[in-house]
């Protein structure tokens, strides 16, 4: 039997998804020209990373400052395929060795390196886009979490790895395109990705994949594994003594976030027509954490809105006050951490939701019981020390957030 709580959580889920879809599918395309829409699509590809971070950091407590690595690997895999397609012997006829990407020719390579061969095939490329970052995350996670490297240490090591990757990509320019990245991508399977029609298609493809990712994240976050991640974040040792191999869960969530990031990276490459090592670096990786923090680190939808809002703000400010944007963005970060530690999702849950449910409650009395229950819990929480509330999962913050299962859901009546 469905309990009122469960029904309302599903209702919240449907509402959230509908609002998101309406925004992405209706509002944006009808109010923007193709250039702005393409930019939105680009930002949405960052949202994949932010969503991965919600699970990895918000739920699992693992703050990776190297998500750009996975984004970049996914993007590079896509870019390698597109670059090979763009490097036809006819188009590269003026090179010493026609038929290989231009930057290889500049670096005196005379044949395609072996690891590029796989990217001649589109199906294989798709597999590699998903596989390479995930497998990398798996081995990295294996090394780190089995050895119980955690917390701040993990964050700093991920930075070092991002640093290593950047130096390698920049240094091995004959194989990777170096600091320029892989540029001048033209077609994908014969379709010109630079036309307006293609950009529109890619935007919708991105939205479609994003919705799939939302569903996947919601499923993971509502599963027992999602609850375990929160438990691991709060008290890792305790979970071990409940008989769980904590490292495996951490590896899983890192791989999962890497997987999502890779999809984002590939979509980025398709929509912008190039990939650059600057995404693998530390700055990009931290920016993605900021997206997630602004949106609310426990909220899947928050991550998407956070990404869009910060990116749009950054673009708008830099277009209008090019000399001031870093001041304002910096102030937004600090303000966000100090004043809205729960991000947009927290703001919504604290101020908008109570208002809405007040309205709702007056209209229909049916769910009143459940709501009072929840408010009682909120009241009770007020007595808990502030840091507990911040670190923990206050119930009001969870509602309508796709993770109700953790705390108010499924009571047994």
């Amino acid at each position, binding site marked *: 039997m469905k309990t009122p709580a469960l029904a309302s959580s599903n209702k919240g889920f449907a509402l959230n998804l509908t609002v998101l879809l309406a925004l992405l599918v209706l509002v944006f395309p009808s109010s923007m020209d193709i250039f702005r829409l393409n930019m939105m699509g680009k930002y949405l590809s960052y949202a994949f990373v932010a969503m991965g971070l919600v699970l990895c950091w918000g739920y699992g407590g693992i703050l990776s400052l190297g998500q750009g690595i996975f984004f970049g690997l996914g993007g590079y895999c896509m870019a390698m395929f597109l670059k090979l397609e763009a490097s036809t012997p006819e188009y590269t006829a003026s090179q010493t060795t026609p038929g290989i990407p231009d930057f290889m020719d500049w670096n005196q390579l005379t044949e395609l390196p072996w690891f590029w061969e796989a990217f001649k095939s589109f199906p294989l490329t798709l597999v590699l886009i998903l596989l390479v970052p995930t497998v990398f995350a798996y081995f990295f996670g294996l090394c780190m979490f089995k050895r119980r490297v955690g917390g701040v240490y993990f964050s700093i090591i991920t930075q070092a790895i991002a640093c290593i990757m950047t130096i390698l990509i920049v240094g091995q320019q004959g194989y990777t395109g170096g600091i320029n990245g892989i540029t001048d991508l033209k077609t994908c399977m014969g379709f010109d990705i630079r036309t307006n029609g293609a950009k529109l298609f890619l935007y919708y493809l991105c939205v479609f994949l994003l919705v799939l990712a939302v569903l996947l994240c919601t499923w*993971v976050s509502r*599963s*027992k*594994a999602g*609850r*375990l991640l*929160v*438990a691991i974040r*709060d*008290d890792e*040792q*305790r*979970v*071990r*003594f*409940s*008989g*769980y*191999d*904590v490292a*495996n*869960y951490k590896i*899983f969530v890192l791989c999962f976030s890497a997987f999502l990031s890779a999809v984002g990276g590939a979509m980025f490459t398709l929509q912008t027509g190039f990939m650059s090592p600057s995404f693998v670096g530390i700055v990009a990786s931290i920016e993605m954490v900021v997206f997630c923090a602004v949106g609310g680190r426990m909220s899947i939808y928050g991550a998407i809105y956070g990404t869009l809002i910060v990116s749009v703000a950054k673009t708008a400010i830099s277009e209008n006050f090019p000399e001031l944007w870093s001041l304002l963005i910096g102030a937004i970060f600090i303000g966000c951490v100090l004043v809205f530690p729960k991000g947009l999702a927290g703001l919504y849950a604290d101020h908008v939701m109570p208002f809405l449910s007040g309205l709702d409650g007056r209209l229909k009395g049916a769910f009143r019981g459940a709501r009072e229950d929840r408010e009682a*819990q909120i009241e*009770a*929480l007020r007595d*808990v020390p502030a840091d*507990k509330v911040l670190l*923990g*999962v206050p*119930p009001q913050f969870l509602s309508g957030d796709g993770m109700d299962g*953790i*705390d108010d859901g*499924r*009571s*047994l009546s």
Partner: protein
Amino acid sequence: MKKKEFALEVEGLTVSFDGFKAVDDLSFYVDEGEIRVIIGPNGAGKTTVLDLICGKTKATSGSIRFRGTELTKLKENEIVDAGVGRKFQNPSIYENLTVFENLELSYPKGKKVFGALFFRRDQEVIDKVREVAREIFLEEKLSMKASLLSHGQKQWLEIGMLLIQDPALMMLDEPVAGMSVAERKQTAELLRRITKGRSVIVIEHDMKFVEDIADRVTVMHQGKLLAEGSMESIKKNQQVIDVYLGQ
């Protein structure tokens, strides 16, 4: 002569922290079905012994065998799988989850990552959780957040989380500390019920409580074994009186 089969064999166990030996060449044996109480003054190394058995701390030397399995080489969760469960001194529960979820997480099913992803809350799980909750007097509180429980209730919840794992060796670190008199009584009853059919190690300071439940008592002092035997014999042991009981 055939060596007697013990449930738990601790032999030559030593751990040193930066030169300080918290547990020093300790050996003791626990029978199947026995309730063993460890007593001793503060800093005697009692909690450290439990830490060593359940894998929280790694031994410097010595061995811990449980039903023939060497525990010192295993990870915490493997020790749990081997049938050793532990309740900590300070209630250690998932504060952000409900009582139901606390028990559910401890239920030994869906422990692997993919098991947990596809874990379904079926009737069997619900029944088992309810059964345990009834046992630990928390049936009414199933949907309450664990952080809102009283201190004593948290202790019970943790015992429940242990119980639902159905361990063959149960280790309880001061299970009645911080409880009211009424709660102590309830807890003693609870322990008597649930310790049936398993080996139990309890750390406790409440001598009345110890006398109530102990089969045998081990006294530790400065990381070493001071005395071992029935409560009666321990009470008469002059050394024990000097360092601990006589205060």
